[in-house]
């Protein structure tokens, strides 16, 4: 009994950390590993056993599935790019032009829509864009669109939904890096004779790049895996990676193939994160070389 009590006091920390750890392993890492294994074996009725094969991965290369993954990659990159174009001026404005007194109000109103349920945000767009909806009626009365124009179920409506749902995730990290920037750097740049454009190009923008990278990943990854937005705003015209996963796991019940698709998706995401880290390192490296050269 004494031994047990001693063990308990000494190893309390270990015992405390166990549940969260177990939870994480049991419900995240273990199933993912199991799915990865599962996707490499094919049941052959002749031999009556599972044999190792990359059959499912070859199937992923099939035009239909390959195109869906490509679609997702393109959509995610396009959304991240559009978000960046809109987000940078907004973040710049919030960080540099607004007095700190009003900033929290602007930030609060910015975050608010993205913290309500995604489904509700999409429904709001659905309601606005729908065939007899508010926007098409207004555009019709203004004479811009003919009656009964389809604003839904096209690439445009998917992009609109994606950008409006994920824009704050691009604005916030850029805002944070701009906000943290030392104002003395800008003064130094001005003192050294740089005009506003030069200061932006040579000082502000390079220093805000980490925020841009973070924002890019925060937008790219969820958009890549998104399934509700394409299915509600895009109809059935476009097939994406997320909708394939839903189809294979919930409707077709073709789990090994679904697992192979999931693994391919995870690999792509990891690859993209890694390449971003590499690009970031390379950029800072090149910049240092440039600075050193200029000194000499």
């Amino acid at each position, binding site marked *: 009994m004494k031994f047990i009590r001693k063990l308990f006091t000494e190893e309390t920390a270990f015992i405390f950390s166990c549940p*969260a750890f177990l939870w994480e392993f049991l419900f995240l890492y273990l199933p993912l590993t199991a799915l990865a294994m599962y996707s490499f074996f094919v049941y052959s009725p002749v031999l009556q056993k599972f044999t190792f094969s990359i059959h499912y991965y070859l199937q992923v290369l099939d035009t239909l599935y390959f195109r869906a993954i490509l679609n997702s990659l393109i959509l995610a990159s396009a959304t991240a790019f559009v978000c960046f174009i809109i987000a940078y001026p907004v973040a710049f404005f919030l960080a540099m032009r607004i007095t700190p007194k009003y900033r929290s109000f602007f930030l609060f109103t910015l975050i608010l829509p993205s913290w309500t349920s995604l489904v509700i945000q999409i429904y*709001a767009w659905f309601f606005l864009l729908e065939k007899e909806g*508010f926007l098409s009626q207004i555009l019709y009365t203004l004479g811009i669109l003919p009656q009964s124009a389809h604003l839904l179920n096209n690439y445009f409506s998917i992009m609109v939904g994606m950008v409006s749902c994920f824009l704050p995730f691009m604005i916030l990290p850029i805002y*944070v890096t701009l906000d943290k920037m030392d104002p003395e750097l800008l003064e130094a740049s001005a003192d050294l004779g740089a005009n506003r454009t030069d200061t932006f190009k040579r000082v502000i923008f390079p220093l805000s790049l980490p925020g841009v990278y973070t924002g890019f990943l925060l937008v790219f990854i969820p958009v890549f*895996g998104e399934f509700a937005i394409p299915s509600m705003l895009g109809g059935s015209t476009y097939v994406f990676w997320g909708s394939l996963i*839903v189809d294979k796991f919930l409707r077709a019940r073709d789990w090994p193939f679904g697992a192979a698709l999931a693994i391919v998706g995870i690999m792509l995401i990891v690859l993209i994160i890694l390449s971003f880290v590499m690009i970031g390192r390379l950029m800072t490296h090149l910049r240092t070389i440039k600075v050193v050269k200029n000194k000499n």
Partner: protein
Amino acid sequence: MVEENKKLFLRLMQPLIVGFTYLFLYLPIIVMVLFSFNKTKVSVHWEGFSLCWYKQLFQTPEILDALQVSLIVALFATIISVVLGTLFVVASVWRKSGYLSYLFHANIILPEIIMAIGILSVFTFFQIPLGYLSLITGHTVIGLGFVIPIVRARFVELDPILTEASLDLGASYTHTFKKVLLPLLMPSLVSSALLVFTLSLDDFMIAFFCSGPKVQTLSVYVYSMIKGGVDPTINAISALFLLFSSLLVLILCSLRVIDQVMSHE
């Protein structure tokens, strides 16, 4: 002269872009909320103010059931993830193995759909019926990904002398945890609990995969209704949902939790 014009253009351009961005984010929501007070079912024509859709909302048992499911799941997921997450942070830092918390970064980074199929496959493999249990499990996995960084950020900031003093004075680990650490960690616990609660209420992906045939959360219910087309009752639920989550975000903002998460990403 040209230079002057360019400057003026640039100066005006920025507020314009910001204005359009806010319009873009808010127009759909405002229109949706506005038409939840409309008298008729035909969505585009304003026929006068009425609360009939809200009345209907509270007379539909499915909606109330779904709301109940969402709240129960969010409550349990919040409690479990905050308790487990806090214990993990404290224990791993005390054991000087804080790097283990990087394992939990995957919960934030991976797309939710991946976590959803993971949980679906565990429950299918062990033949546990889907329902409350799978929903709470899934939301706890997501919650841990947020609780651990937030609590850890606060815990690392604390002066280690406080806990050392308590241990030197003869208090056991458990006693130190209860009397010294817990009160100090309270702000981060409250803010992470609110965050997990909001995330769990808003979640769609996990609920879509893991709710099973019998149990339905509010977001899945709204999704299935939308598939049937536009209906003013959905506007009404959405408006209420919006009100509720904006209250939660207001509290979160006043606790500055979002800054903490952002600086940690």
